[in-house]
């Protein structure tokens, strides 16, 4: 790029800088909204059931090791691994497990309807990119455990 070419572009670049700042602000705002939405989703006390869909939300835990994401879920009244369907994508893990004997909360007057709850359902946000195809799942004593390797990118560095 020549000197002349550069100075000629100063005004245009100034405009570009403002545009860039605007873009930056809106992208930061977007990111913040995303984070707040996530925090809100995590901490707002939404009910752990859905009357319309007749499902209960299970308690889940997500934690990470250096190279794995480990998700567990508490699934009482789920009898065997055959009653559980798991789907995994790059960002989410979907858990659906049918309950052996449908649960009703007849004495609980908060519910406007008293459907039998027939399954647990939860979509878990994964904290990082994962090797979805290599995920392994275990089910023991009503606790489901899914171990998913993290996507660790890159090449081997040779030390000189």
């Amino acid at each position, binding site marked *: 790029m020549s000197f002349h070419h550069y100075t000629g572009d100063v005004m245009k670049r100034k405009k570009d800088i403002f545009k860039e700042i605007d873009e930056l602000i809106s992208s930061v705002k977007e990111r913040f909204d995303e984070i707040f939405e996530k925090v809100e989703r995590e901490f707002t*006390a939404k009910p752990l059931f859905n009357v319309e869909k007749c499902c209960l939300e299970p308690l889940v*835990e997500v934690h990470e090791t250096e190279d794995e994401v480990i998700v567990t879920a508490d699934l*009482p009244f789920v009898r065997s691994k055959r009653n559980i369907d798991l789907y995994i994508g790059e960002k989410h893990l979907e858990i659906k497990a049918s309950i052996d004997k449908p649960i009703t909360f007849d004495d609980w007057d908060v519910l406007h309807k008293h459907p039998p709850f027939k399954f647990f359902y939860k979509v878990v946000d994964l904290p990082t990119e994962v090797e979805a195809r290599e995920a392994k799942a275990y089910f023991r*004593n009503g606790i489901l455990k899914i171990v998913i390797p993290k996507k660790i990118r890159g090449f081997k560095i040779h030390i000189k």
Partner: protein
Amino acid sequence: MKILGEEEQIKIIESRPLKAKNPTIILALPDVGLVGVISAMQMIESLEPRVIGEIESELFPPITIIHEGKILAPIRIYEKNGIVIIVSEIPIPTTVIRPLISKIVSWAIEKNASLLLIPGGTPSPNRLEIDSPKVFAVATNDETLKVAKKHGADTFREGILVGPHAIALMESVKKGLNALSLMAQSFLNYPDPGAAASIIEILNKMLKTNISVEELLKKAEEIRVRTRDLMRHTSDVMRRMGKMKEYELPPLYR
């Protein structure tokens, strides 16, 4: 106008006089795996003690429990045959734990309690592989620890305690109350009736009670469904109080 300290804002209301001269007081607040609360609920169901009081404070969330149409305080005190049970159905906000426990320890001393017993859980990373959870004991004096060990508890030798039982032990040491914390290996964030069963087995021997462990295990799944909300809110409180420190090794050992 006198500004009340936090402890003065907590009131222990005795609706009926305590009968026992030297009661064993069991303190069950929501914590790891709700082990303490589940154990206490099973004791209440089995012993059928009467409610003798409640703990009230403006520092607690504005909650009232309705059970079978009756209005109940969320933190209640029960008594039967020399056993007093204090149980909470709400997680205690982190900032209120210290004044609440301090108040309870002072009350226990005032009532000439022979023992303050805190049943609970210790988070075990491999809980999934454990069929019968061990129970660890920490006591304010050697004699009490010996009794707990005689009845099947192991000594908790090294570790960091965080939460209600940590404060209860410290306050008891400070004020000279005989206290024992029993901690069963437990899930951290899932209600753990299996861990509560291990606690009940030891309590049965220590207190010469006959609380059915079988019955507790039979309705374990129902308990896990019913206590999901309390567990979720307790998990939030535990996260804020730094419960994960219980997985750490203490830096100084002498």
